[in-house]
Each structure stands twice: as structure tokens, then as C-alpha cells.
């Protein structure tokens, strides 16, 4: 029968291509060529390979680093809420340095957190690598206590107060603005000023996005429900433009669709990789203003981990100099361990006076969601 034949043909074709394509799990182990070659090979695909050379060379001058680190062997299952294009090269470096094979599941941070909650005690995950303090907080009950020595590497501002997760990289809230229309002196010192009449119809936000919601939670926690509610209502009354994501806002600002937008600092640098002449810049709000909140991407080790030792090694690795340099150079985030130099194009973390907020308190997102719904920011 022709139908059966064509279906079989399609199937065979796929199998053949699958077989030719080779290994289906690219991150499971380093390819043989990678191990033998220079440390840049892992990131050869990246355009800015030169930065990587210096970064890795500083950390591990001898290349197969087995001399410095005892290879622990074994394997590790990482649930990554961070995307593959950003962190896969880092995980390959981890395998090279420790000999621990890594299996990674990539997904959205919230979806991965929900998946771990659904899996319950049967979760195959050893560690969760997420990009939001709220998601890490939601999984807090499923994480083990981390060692003091590890937690102490990072400023207490960026660590779970319960000691269940630790921040690995920082992400600052900024106001991105179109440099054709505005200069830095035009911009307000406080995010609360954006409700003033001169900003009517000129600001974009993404109320469905996790980073803005984390900010609103911080506003509620630090200045109370009333101030948060007033600000949200003021923004809506001021004709704030609604977007779906930070990336959409940065694009809209660069194209002149809207003058300014509330986003995280690194989206601008991602855009500039594709459009080097993009007409946009970041503005940081003033000293200690709630608008300059710094959220984290971080890691927690699951109580149900099958390979708890490898999981601990992984958590330590994310705070090693090599990994921290990687965040500075590749993802344009802030390294959180002291003494690592940030990308010079970015305002250093040390110069940002962050608001006085316990990131562990940012897990009350349900309250924020209800507030956003009550004022009509989201339906």
C-alpha cells in the first residue's frame, strides 16, 4: 500500500538522518576533539571567542586540568531554567574540569520549577539552575542547606536567607532609553517619578514578565502595599505601553516605537550583538532606589538528588573564578564573587547602590499577581 510505504519511507528517512547526525545529547560529554584542543574550542562557535581565551586561560593555564582538580567522575542531572545558548559552553567547561558528565534539561525557569514540583520525590533532577530568586524561593523546601563556606563567597544580599540557594550571577533593573530622543540628564532618579505627567505615554513595561513582577514584589515588601498600588495605578493612568517581554521592549525602544522601557540591563547588550548601532542606552536609577533592584540567577541542590556530591561540586563550580568570568563576558551579567572584573561597557555592580531587600522575600509572587490583576495591569 502506498500510504504505508510513504509513511515507512518517512520513518526510515528520519532514522537514517538521526543516525548520521550522531550523538543526540551534545552536552553529555565533551567531543574527543574538544578535549585535545585548546580551551577555546568549546566556545569556537561564539563570535567573541577572543574574550573567552583570556578568561579561561587565567583560571586554568594547564589545559586538561586533571592535574589541578581530582576528576570526580560520575554524572549529574541539571534542570536549567537558563537557556542553552547562554550556559551550554559553561557546562561543557565544567565537565572538562571535573570529569563529571552532565545531562541538562533546558526550559523556561518557571516551567522547570513547576516540573520539579510535579515530579515530587521522583524528580530525576540533582540541581536546579534558575534565573529568578522567586523561582528559587518557590523550590526552597525541596533544596538542601548549602555549606556556609559556599554561601560566604557571595554578598549576603544575593543569597537565600534560609541558606537553601546561592546567587551565581546578578541582573540589574534599568530604564532603557532611545538615545535619539533622550540624554541621560533627562532621566529621573527614582522609578516612582515615572508616573509624572512628562512621562505620559513614553514608558514601556512587561507586566506579565517575571523580572517586572519581582520588582513589584520588592516594591510591596519595601514600601508597602499602598505605595505599590499607587505606583501601578499611576503608571496605567500615565498610559504605560504594554509589551510581552524585556527583549520586545528593548527592540521597541531601539526602533523608536517607544521612548523608554523598564528592563534588565543585559538585554541591551544582546541586542547590540545583532544591531551594533542600536540607538539605545541603559539608565540606572539613583542611590538605593527601588528601581535599581538586582535580582539573581542561582543554584539549589535538591534533597532528592541521586548524585548529591556531584551536585555540590557543581554548585561550587558556578562560584569559581572561571564560571564567574564566563558570566561577565558571555551573558553580560554581574559576577557575584568579589574581585571579578565586569565587562567594561557595563556599569560595575559595586557602583550600584541596591535597595535594601531580602531576595528570599520575593517569593510572594501570588500577592503581586493579585495586585497586578486588581489594578488592571494584567487581566
Amino acid at each position, binding site marked *: 500500500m*502506498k*500510504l504505508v510505504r*510513504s*509513511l515507512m519511507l*518517512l*520513518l526510515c528517512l*528520519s*532514522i537514517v*538522518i*538521526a543516525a*548520521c*547526525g*550522531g550523538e*543526540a*545529547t*551534545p552536552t*553529555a560529554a565533551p567531543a574527543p576533539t574538544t578535549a585535545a584542543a585548546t580551551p577555546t574550542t568549546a566556545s569556537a*562557535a*561564539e*563570535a567573541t571567542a577572543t574574550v573567552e581565551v583570556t578568561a579561561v586561560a587565567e583560571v586554568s593555564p594547564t589545559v586538561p586540568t586533571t592535574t589541578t582538580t581530582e576528576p570526580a567522575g560520575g554524572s549529574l*542531572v541539571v534542570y536549567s531554567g537558563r*537557556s542553552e*545558548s547562554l550556559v551550554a559552553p559553561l557546562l561543557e567547561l565544567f565537565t572538562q574540569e571535573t570529569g563529571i558528565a552532565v*545531562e*541538562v*534539561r*533546558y526550559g523556561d525557569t*518557571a*516551567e522547570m520549577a*513547576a*516540573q520539579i*514540583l*510535579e*515530579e*515530587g520525590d*521522583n*524528580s*530525576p533532577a540533582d540541581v536546579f539552575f534558575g534565573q529568578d530568586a522567586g*523561582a528559587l524561593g518557590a523550590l526552597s523546601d525541596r533544596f538542601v542547606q548549602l555549606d556556609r563556606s559556599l554561601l560566604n563567597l557571595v554578598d549576603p544580599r544575593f543569597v537565600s536567607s534560609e541558606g537553601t540557594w546561592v546567587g551565581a550571577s546578578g541582573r540589574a533593573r534599568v530604564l532603557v532609553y532611545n538615545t535619539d530622543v533622550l540624554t541621560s540628564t533627562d532621566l529621573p532618579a527614582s522609578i516612582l517619578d515615572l508616573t509624572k505627567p512628562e512621562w505620559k505615554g513614553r514608558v514601556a513595561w512587561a507586566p*506579565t514578565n*517575571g523580572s517586572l513582577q519581582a520588582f513589584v514584589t520588592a516594591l510591596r515588601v519595601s514600601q508597602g502595599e499602598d505605595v505599590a498600588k499607587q505606583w501601578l495605578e499611576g503608571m496605567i493612568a500615565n498610559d504605560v505601553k*504594554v509589551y*510581552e517581554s524585556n*527583549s520586545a521592549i528593548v*527592540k521597541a525602544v531601539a*526602533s*523608536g516605537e517607544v521612548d523608554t522601557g523598564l528592563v534588565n540591563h543585559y*538585554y541591551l547588550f*544582546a541586542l547590540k*550583538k*545583532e*544591531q*551594533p548601532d542600536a540607538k539605545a542606552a541603559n539608565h540606572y536609577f539613583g542611590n538605593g532606589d527601588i528601581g535599581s533592584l538586582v535580582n539573581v540567577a542561582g543554584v539549589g541542590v535538591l534533597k532528592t538528588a541521586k548524585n548529591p556530591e556531584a551536585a555540590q561540586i557543581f554548585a561550587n563550580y558556578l562560584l569559581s573564578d572561571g564560571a564567574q568570568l564566563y558570566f561577565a563576558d558571555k551573558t553580560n551579567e554581574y559576577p557575584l564573587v568579589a574581585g571579578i572584573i565586569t565587562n567594561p561597557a557595563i556599569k560595575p555592580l559595586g557602583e550600584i547602590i541596591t535597595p535594601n531587600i531580602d531576595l528570599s522575600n520575593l517569593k510572594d*509572587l*501570588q500577592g*503581586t*499577581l493579585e495586585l497586578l*490583576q486588581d489594578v488592571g495591569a*494584567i*487581566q
Partner: protein
Amino acid sequence: MVFKHLRFRSGRWSALFLTISAGLIALIMVLPVGYLLLRTSEAGSAAWAQLQRPSTLRVFTGSALLAITVTAGSLLIGLPLAWLTTRTNLPGARIWLTLIMLPMAIPSYIGAWAIIAVLGPRGLVQQWLEPLGIERLPEVYGFWGAAGALILFGYPYIVLNVRVALRKLDPALEEAARSLGQRSSHIFWRITLPQLRPALAAGSLLVILYALSDFGAVSLLRYNSFTRAIYLQYRASFDRTGAAVLSLLLVGLACGLLAAEALSRGRARYYRSSAGVSRQPKLVGLGVWRWPALIFCAIVVLFAVVLPIVAIVAWLIIGLRAGQSWNLQLTDLANSLLAASLAALVTIVLAFPVVFLAVRYPSRLTSLIERATYVGYALPGIVVALALVFWGANYLPWAYQTLGLLILAYAVRFLPQAIGSLRTSLLQINPRLEEAGRSLGQPAWRVVLSVTLPLLRPGIISGAALVFLSTLKELPATLLLGPTGFHTLATDIWNNTAELRFSQTALPALLLMVAAGASLALLLANERKT
């Protein structure tokens, strides 16, 4: 209840067998609902509070309105296109057919993004018009933007179903009417259209459920439908209660629509009364009308096909100019094809008992079984995926995160696509053909293989093609249920858009559309041979 309709003894066993196997399949398909009930019952008063929020009612009516608008729009576009490409002498009909089916190969998240990039307030079109002094285009966001995008990606479901029916239509009916002196338009409305009812109903149902479950388009075009509200709940609070309550309401809405469709079906028969060689009806000459017909086709193709392709190619060029390195992922292409072919195969096999039972032994029970299989299609992918994460990790740990469970998830999501197509075909096969076969002493399975199956081929092919295409585009189930390290083109696209790498997205998106386009071409070529 079932057995009342049996006319011969050997059928009793096949009916029993069909009822049991179809019942089991239906049970698997309602697993997500079981999960939702479990989550909601655990929540207690929080679930009640969610139900009483004014926003819940807004989302409910908004979603229903969107689904109805999208279906009406898809019928308005899909029915004429199906007729023009099947029954008229439209110039270049085969090429137009391929082109108008192409939107099925474009994921709604890419299509909606392209609409914004081109037609947005400061999109490409605005930039072209800028010299004329136009600084902003009207907003594409909101209800009409979302409805427009979903219509553009939904109408092919109508075309596909209606074409199969049009081709199997007995020309004798129309010829009889013509010999009685009826005018062409009259024949279409009074003879042809009523015959198309099952196909229109099956296609509409797919469009309705597609509109209800789509996330990409409504999210990018900022319309707050159920799917978006459910995603928001997950994203914002990791709270599965609110999401579960909203999902159950969505199931309720889908059940209402399913019941309405069932009522409209009636008890009509659609197979030909007499045996005979199936003939192709004569093509209708369009005359001067071919110009408006061509313009109509061109406009649809411009918005649904050219626009997304222009956007993708534009980003490809931007990426090339910026000196981007392309790591062409052949493995991911192969994974996509493998998963989609397996899903098409499994889903068609699962659809068989359900369709046979529902069509050959119609009763309340069998209709209920058939309807139950539609539920998974109305739910957003994330809900189905998390339900299978829950059942899989806790009750089938050996199957969890294997290709097998992933294929099952695709089947739960897309079984109605196979059922709709098969059902339309089977309705047009006179059961007396099977009875004749059996009266010659052939066992039932043999009759099905040698008589029914070959006649069902158009339905099988279109059903398999639908599932194949949907699987290629599917994202949440692939992310949450695929074996670790199992990458497909869809996950590549997600991975790159998540980090704003639009130009990196262009290549996998293009590959995905080529793969889907190739399978469409295969489908259309096969159709011609019949």
C-alpha cells in the same frame, strides 16, 4: 446500547473489541483532566476564590468570543479556497493549493512575531511608508490582531478537511440536479454544501480547539485568552491551583462547544447509496470570475505565507551581515522528523478504533468516547505536559522522559486531528461494502484491511500529515517530556528567541518550514495519484 445497531453476529465481537479499545484510548486522553481535578480538589477554598475573580469571567467570555470569531473567519477563507482549488479551473490551482496550505508549516509564535515585525506600529511597512509622512501604523495588538493571526494559521484545517470531502463527493447528485435545470449557485448551496457538513464540522472543531489552546499568537499579540491567563499563573506564582481552575473552566468551555457541534451533526448519512466507480466531477469554469478568485488567493498567501517568510529572511540577512556563525543542527532536524513521524503513526493507529466505533456503532456511549478524546486538544500544551509529568514521574518512572511518553503526549494533544480526518472519510464509505465482504466469509479484520483501509486513504494521509505538522511545531511537551538532551527544531527556535537572538532563530525556523513544506508536498503528490 451498542449492540442494538448490529446487524450480523460476527460484528458483536468486533463491537465489543472496539468499545473496549476505544474506551481505553479515551481514558488515556482524559488523563490531563484527572490531573486537573486532583490539583483543584487539593486547593479547596483557593480554587473557589479563583473562580469568583471578575477576571475569570472576562477571560471566559473573551476566549469564547475569540474562538467563535476565528472559526467564522477560517470558514470564510477556507471554504472558498478549498472549492476553488478542487472543483474549478483556477489557473495554477496546484501551486495555489501548495501555497495556501503552507501556513500550517509556520508555528503561530513565528507567524505572530512576523506580523508584528512587518505590520507593527513601527514595523517594516511603516518604514517603507515613512517617506510619505506616516509615522505610526494603527496597533496590531489586541483582539483583532490575535483573531487575524489565528485565522491565518487556522483556515488550512478547513481547507484540508473540505478538500477530502469534495473529492469523495458523488458527482451524480450534482448532475441530477443540473439535469433538472438548477443553476450552479443553487446546486452549490442546496446540494454540495449540505454534503460538506461533516467536513466543515470536523474542520471547525479543530479550528475552535486550536484557537482555544494556542499560546504563541495570543501572547505575542497581547490578547488575554485562557491560555495566556493559565501561563501567567504558572509563570508568576508557580501556583498550580489557579492554573488548574482556569484549565478546568477551559475544558468546560470546550465541552460546551463539542456538545453544540454534536447537536448540529444530526443523523444524516453521507455515503453514496449505490455501488459504482468513483468518478471525478467535472471542473467548474470560472470565466471572468477567475480574476477576483486569483486576487483572493493572492491576498491570503501574501499575509499568511509571504509575510512570515519575508520576516524570517530579513533576520537571516541581518544575521549574515553581522557575521553570525551558523551551526546547522542536522541532528535536531532528524529528531524533529523522527518524533513527528512516530507521532503521526501512533496517533493514526489510536484514532482507528475510536472512529470505527463512533461511525459504525453510533450511540450515546460511543459519541461520549469520541468526544472525550478531544479534550486534550483544547488544553494548552503546558497543561497537558505537566499532567503527563505528574502521571509519568509518579506512576510510570520507567517511561518518564523517554521518547515513548513524549509520543504519547503528542497523541493526547493531536488525536482529534487524526479523528476528524478519518471520520470525514469513513462517513463516505457505505457500510454495505464491508457487509458484502463479510458475507463472502471474510473475517472482519480482513475486510477492514482489504476493503475499508484503501478507501480511507485520503483521510489517513491528511490526518497523518496534520499530526506530523503539529508535532513539528509543538513546544511545551517537547521541552518538559522529551528525553534529556533531545533537541528539536522547535526547541532550537525557543532557545534562541528566549535570548533575543532573532537572527539565530531564522535558520531553525526556515528548516522547520522546509521540513513541514516537504511533508505537505508529499501529501499533495500522494493525493494526486489517488
